[in-house]
Structure formats: C-alpha cells, structure tokens
C-alpha cells in the first residue's frame, strides 16, 4: 500500500523535517533528523528507480484529482535517475556536515542551517518529480530561496554579495520561466506536462509558442549557468560554506539541466526543438564557449573553490554539447554526465571541505605540501581530479567516451577533437593543485599543526570517490539507465 505513495513521500519527508528542525532548535537533533530523512529519501528514490525500470512510468494524482484537473507527479526513468543522484549527494553531504558546519557556521544558526538545507532538498526533489509546469515553478522558487539563504549563511562578507547576485539572476530566470509557462497556458489551456505535449502540436506553428520556447530556454539557462548567463555561479560556489558548495554544485545545476531536458524533449518534442528552431547550432556554439571559457578561467584561479566553480561551468558545457547532437548517444552522454559530474564535484568539494576544516580556507597557498600533511584528503582530491579530466577507470572517462562516440556518429569529428583538447585544459588546472600539494614543501610555520581531517568527514568523501571509481568500471547500471532515459526522452522505442 505504501509503495503507491512513494512519489509524494519522496518530497514530503524532507519537507516535513524542515519545520520540525525549527521547532526543536537543537543542533544534534536537527542533524540526526535531517540525516535520517535524507537517507529515507535516498531509499525511496532507489525503490522508485527500480519500479520505473520494471513497470514503466509511475503516475500519482495529488488530491485524487484526475490528470489535467489536478497536479500530477510523474516518474519515469529520467527523473528517477535524477532523484537518485540528488538524494545520494544530500545523504553524503549531511553525513559530512556535522563537523564542517560546526566550524564554518555560527552555532546559533546551525538548526536554521538544517531547516534551510531540508527545504532546499525538498525543493529540488519537487522539481524533479513533478509533472505539472506551474508546480515546477513553485518548487524551483523553494529551492532557489533556500539556496540564497544557504550561501548567505557563510561568515565571509563576499558571500552576501554572491547571494545577492544569485538572487537577481535567479529571480529574472524564474520570471522568464513564468512568462513561458503563461504563454504555453494561453495557447493550450493546460499546465500538465503530458497534456501539454499532446495539445502543443496543434499550435506549434504559432509565433506565441516559439516565444514561449525562447523564454523557457533562456530562463532555464540562467538557472543552469550556461555561458553567457553564468556570472552568478563562481562567486556563489566560492564563498558559500563548504557543505553548501558541495551540495549546490552537485545538485542544483543538475536539476536545472533535467528541467531543460524535460521541457525540450517531453513537452515540446525533439522535432520542434531541433527542426523548427536552430537550436542544435546555438547549443553547440554555447557549449563549446562554455567548455573553453570555463576551463581557461579555471586555470587562472587562486581560490580552489572558485577554480572548481569555473570547471563546473565547463562541465555544464559538456552536457549541453550532448543535447546538441539530438541523438540517443548524445543524450545518453548528457544524462550520464549529469550523474557522473554530480559524483565528481560532490567528492571534490567535500575534500576541499576537509581542507577548509583544518586550514580555514583553500587557496593555492594553503595547498602547498598538503599531500604529506593530509594524505587521505589529498588522495581523494587527486582521484576526483583525474575523474574530472576523464582518465580511464573513472566516471569522467565514461561520459566523455560517449560524448566522443556521439560526435563521431554524427560525423562531427572536430567536436570530438575539441572534447579531447578541453580535457587537456582540465589536466592543466588539476595539475597545478597536484603540484602544489605534492611537490612543494609546506610552509614551516604550520607543518606541525595540520592533521588529517576527522574520520566522519573522510568517510562520505571517500564514499563518493569509491562511487567515482566503481561506476567508472562497472557501467552496466549507469549506462543502462541513461540510455533508457535517453530513449524515453526522444520517444524512440527500445
């Protein structure tokens, strides 16, 4: 009986935790409850993925209203996969959070941190699971408002301006999405995604629908930090508390990417998006710009969190590149990279969190000699970095492999070359850190004081690193799910 309610429980359990944390106002309790809720959500996501793989699409009618009248929750392979990665990251991050948060956030604010974190998680899950476009907007705003708050929780004053910049870009993006939703409603009279996809073909030739498509794409691109709308991202990631950077970097842009996939393929349909609109070309150009601009900017960063943030911009470029192929392989690569990049960035930001825990900040200067002082942390960072470059036996290799195959399938070999060249750029910025950590002596002042990070922080970091390696070797689960998801999105029968 409970299994049929899984889609709603997925969102409600984290949502319920938020007011409970506020009521009790106890640090340890808030942490425990949040952790339990997050692990439960992870379990639910795994069950949902299993169900969708076996039975196909799950539909859940909220309030018992039949589909176009009420709000529907609709889970297929694509969003079940997204739910799984989001809950997995939040579970690892929360495990890490207890020690890290105590160091970086004022103790009186810690219960509020967990409240906000759970709201953010519920918002992201709500975006991923819903089948109604306006409901998507509402949950997008929940996750957005809570991310602004999470970033502003940091003690650095630049976090305030970063949150403010993010707030402005995010709100403009959300308003654009709202305009797009309004125009779609105007032409079809419905808000349900499934219903929209059936009613849209009758009116796709109209200029109003084209405008709606443009507004939705631009709005989501802001949330996704696609070049040239990425300006909010580096500061937001760099000045947020470490746990928040890890969580937001690994999930928020991924969910935004999912929203893009959903609108483009499920609602408008691939034929409209790529045949009536010159989207393939625009996306390819923007993706390449993102990959090269992001990687190049990353090379010149001194703040390591900022470096990783620019690298995230580049990675978003890879995902968009996958979409621009408009083929099953390309989409498989994009969805794979969504999952894999979440694993990499989660692990990398967590290991940086360990560094910040011991050293207070993470600039190039602090990294010197850390290879000997914090061997486990830096080993994790190096493996994560290798994965970012795309070395075989890591997840990064798998997604780049499919990307290259997708490009060659289309006969676009210069793109395949571009992907390889961009990997060299990421080698440069990862190497800079490795060099500082292993080949430079630590400054003698602190050599004695720095110890390895506590075990409760190393454990989740290494869990993600092991996932990076495991899914780099045994690809049956990820590739299987991703290719099935890609087929579902493109409407290709199996």
């Amino acid at each position: 009986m409970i299994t049929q309610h899984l889609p709603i429980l997925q969102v409600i359990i984290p949502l319920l935790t938020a007011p409970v944390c506020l009521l009790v106002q106890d640090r340890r309790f808030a942490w425990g409850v949040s952790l339990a809720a997050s692990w439960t959500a992870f379990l639910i996501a795994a069950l949902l993925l299993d169900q969708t793989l076996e039975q196909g699409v799950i539909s859940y009618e909220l309030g018992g209203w039949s589909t176009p009248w009420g709000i529907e929750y609709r889970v297929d392979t694509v969003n079940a996969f997204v739910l799984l990665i989001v809950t997995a990251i939040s579970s690892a991050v929360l495990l890490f959070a207890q020690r890290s948060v105590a160091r970086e956030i004022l103790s009186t604010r810690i219960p509020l941190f967990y409240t906000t974190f759970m709201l953010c998680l519920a918002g992201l899950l709500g975006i991923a699971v819903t089948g109604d476009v306006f409901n998507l907007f509402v949950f997008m705003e929940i996750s957005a408002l809570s991310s602004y708050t999470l970033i502003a929780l940091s003690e650095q004053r630049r976090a305030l301006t970063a949150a403010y910049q993010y707030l402005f870009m995010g709100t403009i993006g959300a308003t654009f999405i709202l305009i797009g939703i309004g125009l779609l409603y105007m032409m079809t009279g419905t808000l349900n995604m499934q219903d929209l996809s059936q009613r849209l073909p009758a009116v796709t030739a109209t200029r109003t629908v084209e405008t709606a498509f443009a507004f939705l794409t631009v709005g989501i691109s802001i949330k996704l930090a696609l070049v040239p709308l990425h300006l909010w991202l580096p500061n937001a990631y760099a000045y947020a508390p470490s746990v928040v950077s890890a969580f937001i970097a690994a999930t928020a842009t991924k969910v935004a990417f999912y929203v893009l996939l959903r609108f483009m393929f499920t609602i408008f349909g691939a034929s409209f998006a790529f045949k009536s609109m010159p989207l393939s070309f625009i996306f390819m150009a923007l993706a390449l710009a993102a990959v090269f601009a992001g990687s190049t900017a990353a090379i010149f960063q001194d703040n390591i969190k900022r470096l990783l943030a620019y690298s995230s911009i580049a990675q978003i470029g890879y995902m968009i590149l996958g979409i621009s192929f408009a083929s099953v392989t390309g989409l498989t690569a994009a969805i794979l990279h969504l999952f894999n990049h979440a694993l990499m960035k989660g692990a990398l930001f967590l290991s940086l969190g360990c560094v910040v825990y011991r050293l207070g900040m993470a600039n190039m200067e602090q990294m010197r000699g850390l290879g000997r002082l914090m061997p486990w942390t830096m080993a994790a960072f190096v493996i994560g970095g290798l994965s970012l470059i795309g070395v075989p036996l890591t997840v990064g290799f798998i997604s780049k492999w499919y990307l290259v195959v997708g490009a060659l399938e289309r006969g676009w070999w210069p793109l395949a070359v571009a992907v390889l060249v961009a990997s060299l750029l990421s080698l440069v910025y990862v190497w800079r850190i490795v060099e500082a950590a292993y080949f430079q002596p630590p400054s003698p002042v602190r050599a004695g004081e720095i110890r390895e990070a506590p075990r409760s922080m190393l454990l989740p970091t290494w869990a993600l690193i092991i996932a990076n390696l495991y899914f780099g070797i045994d690809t049956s689960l990820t590739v299987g799910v991703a290719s099935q998801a890609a087929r579902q999105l493109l409407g290709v029968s199996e």
Partner: protein
Amino acid sequence: MIRLRNLFAVVMLFGIYSFLTASLFVTLNAVDVAFTEAAVGAGISTFLMLSTLALTVRREKVRRKRTVIPLLVVTIIGATLVYGTFDMPYFSDPSAPLHSHVARHYIEASADEVGVPNLVTAVLASYRGYDTLGEVTVIFTAGIGVLVLLGYRKRSGKS
C-alpha cells in the same frame, strides 16, 4: 523613476504603482488577486522597502552609468515578446483555448466536486492544493532566510 535620486520617492511611486495594479485587477474581475496585490504590493513590499531605507541610506549617489547595452537587451527581449503576441488569442475572447479546457471543467464541475462558491478558493485549496502547500513553504523559507540574515545579532556580537 530612473533619474530620481531620492529613494524614498522611488519606493512611494512603487507603492502607487502596486495600488494601481490592484485596481486594474478589480476591473479585470480578479477580486482575489486584487485583494492580495493591495495587501502585498502596496502593503508589505512597500513597508519592507521603507524599513530597509531606514536601515541603509535615503539617497542614491550620482554616478555615470552605461545605459546602451541594457537598453539593447531590453529592446530585444521586448521585441521577442511583441513578436509572440501576434498569434495570441484576442484580449477577452471567450472562445480562446485557455478558457475551454481545464478552466471550463473548474467552472462547470466544481460545484459538485468541491462545493465552494468562490472558484478561486476551490482551485487554490483543492484542485491545486499542492501548489498552495508549495506557496506556504516559500513563505516559510523566506521567514527562515530573514531570520538567518537579520536575527541573532546580539548573541553573535558577544561570542
């Protein structure tokens, strides 16, 4: 408003704008929305902006600004939207598609299914009740956010 340096006047003009919007909503038959817009736009938002001015500064500093690029961006976006209007159903046309599908069901069936005379309440609280839960959550989040940002100062100052 763009040239105006006195921020107090800017905020008051915004309050008037909101109030006019609310009256416009009444003429468009959206009484519930008008009520809310009057309470929120002309009420809370304006009040909060005035409080912020009291806590920060009243006047904007004079400085040169680049205006060409923003103007260009805004013109392009506006032109796109105007382009989109040409295939829209005409204003207040009863046969437009948006009035015939889901909305018609609400008008025809809600008396039997929900039994509440105010259709807006019926849709808000029942048909789309889950959205409203989201709305409550958004407000709750904002409250937490303001608490995080502005609460706790005394204690943190001591520690």
